[in-house]
């Protein structure tokens, strides 16, 4: 059959007559007779309606055959017409790639949450303070600390110390509370920062109708600090970011899908931490002889607010406290009756005036 031969030394082709044998093909080139065993051949054409053969150990030589000669060549060397000969990866390679990817993903899904706790405990205080500075700068962008509320802040500090005293929290010397004002948005929330501070917003104080409700929130946040949940969350987020940046980086939509998955995963993890903080917080309340019914009442109020806002959960920015009936029920189960309020009437009125608040609770519930 007619063919064209390029010898790999100059960019020209020469017409040759090619003979197909049982195990090899032969042709006469200007340099003499060439014998190419079929077993040493690969395709170089990717099915572009021509057949270009090369040696597997690529010498640059090419033998181009007419498309019409494919039937004859296929009979002589069927292996040259398998997908593998044309560069398509084997099913084994494909399986290995998929398996490797999912192994890495599973290692991430299981490994990073498992490693987050121990790594979080190793983070030096200096780094935690640095992270807290970043958090504070973000807080400063949307809210302001109420500097006219020192008395209210001290009342919350004392309440936090009372909660920790009974439960022997190791970080109790480092915990302090700030009251934050968010003038432009309704933001009833409280959250712990890596520097072991607790932030309570004026909207949360305004929403609370009894000091025990706030005591429950403070207890919950102290539990986050004691169990290092804040750093664990940060380590998890960093781990996820690094993982997806490195392994799946530069992959456009794949990356977007991966990030969405991470967000869902982190929401689930943080809910586990929330449940943990709920349970531990209730222990603080019990140790400090504070009625957990207030905490339950706050959950109910959050849920009502969420429904009023048209969503399932109150929109929260820095911490996830999904108000749910289940959490309210858990708190109610541990409610004690006949206990004194966690704050005196006087302290409660002072606290409610923080950030220019109304000393009397709004009787909406």
């Amino acid at each position, binding site marked *: 059959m007619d063919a064209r031969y390029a010898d790999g030394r*100059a960019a*020209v082709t020469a017409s040759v007559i090619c003979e197909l044998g049982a195990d090899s093909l032969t042709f006469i080139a200007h340099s003499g007779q060439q014998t190419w065993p079929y077993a040493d051949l690969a395709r170089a054409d990717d099915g572009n309606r021509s057949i270009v053969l090369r040696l597997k150990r690529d010498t640059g030589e090419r033998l181009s055959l007419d498309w019409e000669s494919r039937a004859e060549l296929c009979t002589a060397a069927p292996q040259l017409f398998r997908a593998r000969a044309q560069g398509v990866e084997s099913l084994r390679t494909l399986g290995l790639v998929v398996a490797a990817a999912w192994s890495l993903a599973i290692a991430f899904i299981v490994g990073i949450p498992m490693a987050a706790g121990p790594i979080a405990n190793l983070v030096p205080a200096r780094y935690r303070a640095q992270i807290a500075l970043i958090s504070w700068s973000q807080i400063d962008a949307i809210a302001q600390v109420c500097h006219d509320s020192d008395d209210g802040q001290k009342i919350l500090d004392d309440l936090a110390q009372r909660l920790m005293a009974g439960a022997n929290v190791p970080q109790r010397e480092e915990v302090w509370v700030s009251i934050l004002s968010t003038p432009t948005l309704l933001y009833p929330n409280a959250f712990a920062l890596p520097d072991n501070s607790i932030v309570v917003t004026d909207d949360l104080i305004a929403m609370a109708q009894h000091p025990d409700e706030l005591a429950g929130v403070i207890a919950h946040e102290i539990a986050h600090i004691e169990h290092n949940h804040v750093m664990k969350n940060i380590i998890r987020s960093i781990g996820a970011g690094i993982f997806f940046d490195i392994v799946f980086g530069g992959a456009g939509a794949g990356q977007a899908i991966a990030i969405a998955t991470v967000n869902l995963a982190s929401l689930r993890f943080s809910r586990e931490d929330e449940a943990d903080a709920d349970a531990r917080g209730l222990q603080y309340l019990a140790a400090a002889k504070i009625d957990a019914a207030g905490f339950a009442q706050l959950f109910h109020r959050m849920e009502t607010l969420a429904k009023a806002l048209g969503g399932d959960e109150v929109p929260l920015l820095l911490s996830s406290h999904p108000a749910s009936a289940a959490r309210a029920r858990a708190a109610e189960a541990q409610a004690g009756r006949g206990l004194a309020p966690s704050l005196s009437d006087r302290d409660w009125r002072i606290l409610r005036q923080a950030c220019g608040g109304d000393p009397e609770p709004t009787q909406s519930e």
Partner: protein
Amino acid sequence: MTAEAQSTQAFSHSGKFFDVLGLALKNALLSILSLTLYRFWARTSMRRRVWSRVWIMGDSLEYTGKAGELFRGFLIALPTFFLPAVFVFYIAPFALSRSAAGWLLFGFYVVSVPLVSAARYWMRRYQLSRTRWRGIKLGLAGSGWSFAFASSGWTVLQILSLGWFTPAARINRARLLWSNARFGDQAFEFIDDGESPQKGMWWPFALGWFAFPLAYFISLLAVFFGYAVTIGGGPMPSPSDSPVLFVLLALGALVLMFLLMVFFWAPYNAAAMNRIASLISLDGARFRLRAKTFSLFLVNIAGILIWVFSLGFLAPLAGFLQVRYIIARLEIIGAPRFAEIGQSIAEAPRAGESLGEAFDLDMGVGVI
């Protein structure tokens, strides 16, 4: 005999849209299944498909790169690029003071500018070294770092000149790239034809430079016109009265503005591509590209739409359209003495496109 008379349509592209679409869909599916780790194999098969459909004087190009090489390049990029990046982005903000972390981030971006250029150069070197025609390898000599630093300097000039140095920078970059390109042992040349290298590029560039205000005002006018036709006379409602209408109008204005921007830049891009092609020479043979404003605009828009609506998964299809567009409009004037052109003896890079992969520099096809 004039150059016009000598030109021949020596190039053609036999790639079919649905053939490439089929491969792109298969690659997208496997990429999803493998959480994108299949991308090295996807990229290789797509290049093989697109390269092999480029015909030059009756013989097709051949892509000989291997997915394993790209994967190896990725593994090399892990410690050399990703780990420093991880430190800068994730660790330094916590471990260092705010100012130190800020300076480090700034330094990282400053280094990244030439690094992206160098990565692009190395990527091109890899792709050319894995491209053969009639069994002869192409290649790219020269230093990636030299290109990177020169290119960064031109970038600074582009910024200082509020963009007006761009045509000169584009020609300068093309000169460095093409004068270092090789076909076998024959170097390409970027010739001086006695005229300004940016000939024919300045007026189209000026149109592009003014594209933003032009597109902005035309979009605004179109929105007002559309609004008047839809609503008719009467007082203008506020956004809170009919938010859907306002969102649609804003979206329409943005889309129109984007289309106009692409359209206004098309004459410059066509002129630059044509001019660069006209200055490339191989063993005395010259090239001519006949890129036109409207056709280039349509190819660009088609590429963008494919990219957007496939969430990037079918980006290689957009790359294929560009390659096919260029090859179909490329002509050669004269003929190189192919019998005199021998095999390349330059050493080809063994690993793939490590940093190019890190910066995601191509469209899943190759540097065009």
